[in-house]
Each structure stands twice: as structure tokens, then as C-alpha cells.
């Protein structure tokens, strides 16, 4: 059976094609203002028998496509366990939400936490801060890693933190130190969430922000256990969605 897994997120639509449980292809497209257009092109390939959607847009996809749906929590748990058998926990920092998941042996969810309504500490947060500092995302991560000291950022709210960053820039504080402070504060918050749900290693770090080297280093340094970043960190959810079709 050929299954297409779609993770319809706020920033990107990720797709994974499975045939008899093995990945045959994957793709990522920007969600833009019309996420349906993004996944239509994936559907148009026609090389699937079944579609399962996860992510923010899953319910809309179910209405228009009549496809199966699964929550991001379950999708990431399944995807991470399949990519890294023996994984004990999952961290996903996506475009507008962050989730931490503790896994049972075998890949079931034993506990999870998600951020509330705002985009505090997510990929969107990093994008806004990079803009405030005049960096692109990769430059900001590099500057953060190069900085020898950090400056404390107290706000996690995207709006308040942007004002805070602007204030620091106007005080003449080095951009690299501010970038480091921003990464430090997200890492501290994330590690705190992992601790609250009792997450142990190996931890699979997924989602677009896992590709940010500064975040990867900070999570590795702060987490008590092995941290695994899959090569295709961004499509773990889509992979898990596709796998869920094989569960029943």
C-alpha cells in the first residue's frame, strides 16, 4: 500500500510517501496563505492509495479530501520512534508551536506538553528576532555560537521580546550576544518542559528549528541523555502521519 503523509503546519506543508512501510520520497513546501495549494501539488503526483494528514490544517484537509487525520503529538511519536527505535522522548519546535512528548516503550505517548496560544519560543519567534537583529536565521545561529557571553532576555512573548531586543540594540549591545541570549532563553524554556514531563534519552529533536545549529548545540548541552537529530527533522510529523495508516 502507498500512503501519503501530510503535515500541514503554519509555516510549511511537509509530505512523506511510503510504500509498504518504507519511505520512497519526501518534500517540503511553504504553507503561504493557501496551504491547500501547497499540498495539492503533492496530491497531483497521484502516487498514493491513501492520505493521512496531521498538523494545524488537518481538519480542513479532512473536510476537503476526506482523508484520515491524526494529531501532531501522535504523528511525531510514531515518526520519531520509527526513525530512532528505542527513542524515549521527542522535542519538536515548529513554526508556531513547540511540543515535548514522553514515550512509552514501543512508541506510545505517555505524556506531552504543548505551548499555549502564542508563538513564544517557536520558529516564528526566531524569525521575528532575526529580523530585529538584521540577520537571517543561519547568520543568527552562527552569531549566537560565536558569542562568548550571553545577554539575558527575560521575555518569551514574541511581541515583548522584540521590544526588548530593540532596546538592547539601542544600548549598543553586541548582536551576537543578543542572539545567544535569545537561543539560551528558548533552550532553557524547552529543557524545562522536557523536565516537567520526565523526558529521558534518547531524545529525538525534530521540527524545522532542529536544523538551527545553535539550538541543537544548546539542547544537546542541557539535556541529560542522548539527543538525536534526524537528517529529515522537518518531515518527522508527515512520516508519522503516514505510519499511522499502517497501525490499524
Amino acid at each position, binding site marked *: 500500500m502507498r500512503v501519503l503523509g501530510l503535515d500541514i503546519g503554519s509555516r510549511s506543508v511537509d509530505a512523506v510517501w511510503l510504500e509498504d512501510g518504507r519511505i520512497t520520497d519526501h518534500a517540503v513546501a511553504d504553507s503561504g496563505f493557501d496551504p491547500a495549494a501547497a499540498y495539492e501539488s503533492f496530491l497531483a503526483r497521484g502516487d498514493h492509495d491513501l492520505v493521512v494528514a496531521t498538523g*494545524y490544517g488537518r*481538519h480542513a484537509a479532512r473536510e476537503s479530501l476526506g482523508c484520515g487525520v*491524526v*494529531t*501532531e*503529538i*501522535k504523528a511525531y511519536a510514531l515518526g520519531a520512534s520509527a526513525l530512532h527505535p528505542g527513542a524515549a522522548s521527542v522535542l519538536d519546535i515548529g513554526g508556531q*508551536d513547540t511540543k515535548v512528548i514522553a514515550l512509552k516503550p514501543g512508541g*506510545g*505517548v*505517555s*505524556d*506531552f506538553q*504543548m*505551548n*499555549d*496560544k502564542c508563538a513564544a519560543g517557536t520558529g516564528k519567534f526566531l524569525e521575528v528576532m532575526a529580523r530585529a537583529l538584521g540577520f537571517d536565521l543561519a547568520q543568527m545561529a552562527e552569531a549566537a555560537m560565536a558569542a562568548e557571553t550571553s545577554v539575558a532576555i527575560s521575555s518569551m512573548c514574541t511581541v515583548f521580546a522584540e521590544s526588548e531586543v530593540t532596546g538592547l540594540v539601542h544600548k549598543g549591545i553586541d548582536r551576537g550576544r543578543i542572539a545567544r541570549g535569545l537561543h539560551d532563553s528558548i533552550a532553557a524554556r524547552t529543557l524545562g518542559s522536557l523536565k516537567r514531563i520526565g523526558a529521558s534519552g534518547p531524545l529525538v529533536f525534530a521540527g524545522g528549528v532542529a536544523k538551527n545549529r545553535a539550538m541543537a548545540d544548546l539542547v544537546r548541552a542541557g539535556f541529560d541523555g542522548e539527543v538525536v537529530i534526524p537528517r529529515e527533522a522537518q518531515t518527522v510529523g508527515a512520516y508519522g502521519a503516514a505510519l499511522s495508516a499502517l497501525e490499524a
Partner: protein
Amino acid sequence: MSDQPVDYHPMWNELGLDLPTHDALLGAVGQLFGDAYLTQENRPQGMDYLNFVMSEVHGLRIKELDDYRKAGGKVFGTFCLYVPEEIIRAAAGWCVGLCAGAEFAYDQVEQIMPRNTCALIKSFMGFKLARVCPYIESADLVIGETTCDGKKKAYELLGDLHNVYVMELPQMKRDVDMQMWRDEIRNLMAKVEEVTGNTITAESLKAAITEVNDKRRALQRIAATRAADPAPISGKDALLATQVAFYDDVPRFTQMMNALADELEARVAAGEGVTAKGAKRILVTGTPMALPNWKLHDIIEKAGAVVVGEEMCTGSRYYQDLVSEDAATLDDMIDDIAEKYLDINCACFTPNKGRLEDVVRMAKDLGADGVIDYSLQFCGLYEMESNAVETTVRDAGLPVLKITTDYSMEDVGQLSTRVEAFLEML
């Protein structure tokens, strides 16, 4: 009832409502009710009564209040179940809950109170400022209580716009607090007697105690049927019954709820439910859900689970305890009333271990698979207690999901994901 729809606009106009804004509000609530309630399947027939009440929520009931007042009766508006309805009814007053369950006119509210105020307080203030709650406009007196700092100060602001009386509720349950609370009930009696011009007697108070207990007994019967699998009534419908209990005519409501309970008991005996047997069963705990706040129940039940109980003021705290009916003298009755109300386990008390015991007992009695603890953002009391609820429920071996939200719809997507993932986990 005639077939011709009644035009209530003249009555609303007389009450001083802002008619165009009020029309818009009624339209929105009607749509919300349609989406959340009328889409449900396998509803008990007894819910027809509550559908009718909702269709006339600002109509027929307000007309009844209006007629009562024109005949010399007095109406008392309340926001909290600590205000003893028995006292009001014993003086032939009518007690109605006030609108506090929807986001309205926050722009006006935020001119006089901080943005970081809980949705319930902002809501009642918004309804008053925008002149869209016919209940408060029908209330000869609003009776507030000191159950949290936000409400306490909000009643001062409300007092600039309406006739408000505030009862002081103790924050502890020691003997000295009980003494003070008895005095507060006596003070309320004097106030209610002054407003109504009627004297409360042992006979009238005894009758009121029985009448209000009967209402609670009917709700207890409904609550008990929800322990069955499949549950014979949705959580949304059961929540609506408790919400309506705050403002409907007491004897009529009791009669209709007993009829609903008869039907639910028959459904349980026949093994009929609103969902298939084996649907995930959720106990909801926390901050009260004032009408028309159905947000969380709607999310849970649209995800395929069924809410089997509400450990909240719009739930078990409203009906689980009765006032003793044994007393013969007025003094003893007042003591019994004081005792019953001080027994309610609200987060405004310290310590409040009884609430944690209630949560665990209800979860077990109702066969819940998981507990969702619900706090309104900036409701410091329930947000603070949330941690203790989480620990206690986990220690009792049940999964728990903590949710902090408000009346807005902007977080429904994220809440749905969290609730669905929680259900997948059970």
C-alpha cells in the same frame, strides 16, 4: 404559547438595552448554540425543554421577570453560587444568574479595568457597559460576594452603574469564619427583606429550603446517570442544565429536570447512550463555565469523547450538597444554610483539600478515563490550584491535561490538538 413569534423589542427597549448591539449578540449566541448543541446526535427528548429555554433566553424568561416586577415582585441578580437562593426565595424574591460567559465590549471594559483580568469578570462588566444583559437590567439588586480579588474590586466599579450589595465570604473554614458567615447571611436577610418589603419566616424559609433542595436533587439524579457507559446524556447537555439552573423558574425547572432524569434513567436501563459504549470518558474540573461558555466541552465532545462530570460551580459544586431539612426554628435554618454553603469546596478557600478529594471521588464514581483541569486565564485561584489537582489526579492513577484559556476562539486549533492528543493517549 401562540404560533406568532413575540416581538420582545419593546420590552428590551423599556429595560434600556442597546437594541442593535443586543440583536447582534442574540444572533451570535443563537449560532453558537446551533453549532454546539443542535448538531449533536441521540439527544434525550427532555433536552427539548432546554432548547426552548435557550431559544427564549432573553425573551420569555425576561418577560416573566418583567411581569413579576410589575406585580410588585423583586428580582435579585447573582454571579456566584455562594449567594444563598433560599434566603431570596424565602422573601418571595426571584434569583437569577447574570450574563458572564461571552467576550463582549472588552474595549470598553479595558478602559476601566486591567486587560489582565479574567474573562468572567471582563464579560459581566462588558455586558453591563454595552447594555446587552436583560437579566442585570431586570435586577432590583445585584448581590456580589468577595470570592476573589478581581470580583471584589469589579463590584466597586459595577456599583457605579447598578444597585450592588456585596456579601463577605470568609477565606477559611474555622469556627470564627463560620460565625462571621452566619452573620453575613443574617445581614443578607435584612437586606433582602428591606428590598422586597417581605419578612422571612420559619415557614417561608423552610419552604424555600425544600424547593431549592428539590432543584439540586433533580440535578443530582441527572449527574448520577452519567456514570453509565454509554453515558445517556452529553456533557454539553448536562452542563447546559446546570447553567440554566441559575436563572430558570425553580419549580418548573425542577419538574422538567426530573422528567429528563426519568428519561435518562430509562436510557441507562436500556443501555442507550449519546455515544457508543466505550467512548473515552472525561471529568472536567476547575473554573466555572457561565452560559454560553461551551468551548471546552464542545472541543472534547467533537473529538469523540464524552464529558461525564463537571467538578465546578456550574457542576457538582452547585448541586452535590443539600441544606438540612430538619430544623424547625429560623435560627437553626440559618445555621444549616450557613453550613451547607461554607462546605462548598471553592478555590477561594485555604486550605482547600476537600476539592481534591471531590475530584478523585468523582473521577472514580463516574468511571472517568482522564481528567481535564480547566482554568480561565488570570483566574489566580484555579490556576494556582491546578498544580495540586494535577498531582493528586496522577497519584490516583489517572492521566490529566491542564488547560488555561479564555472565551476567545483564537486558540481552538491548538486546544483541539491538545485534547485530541490527550484522548489518543488514554
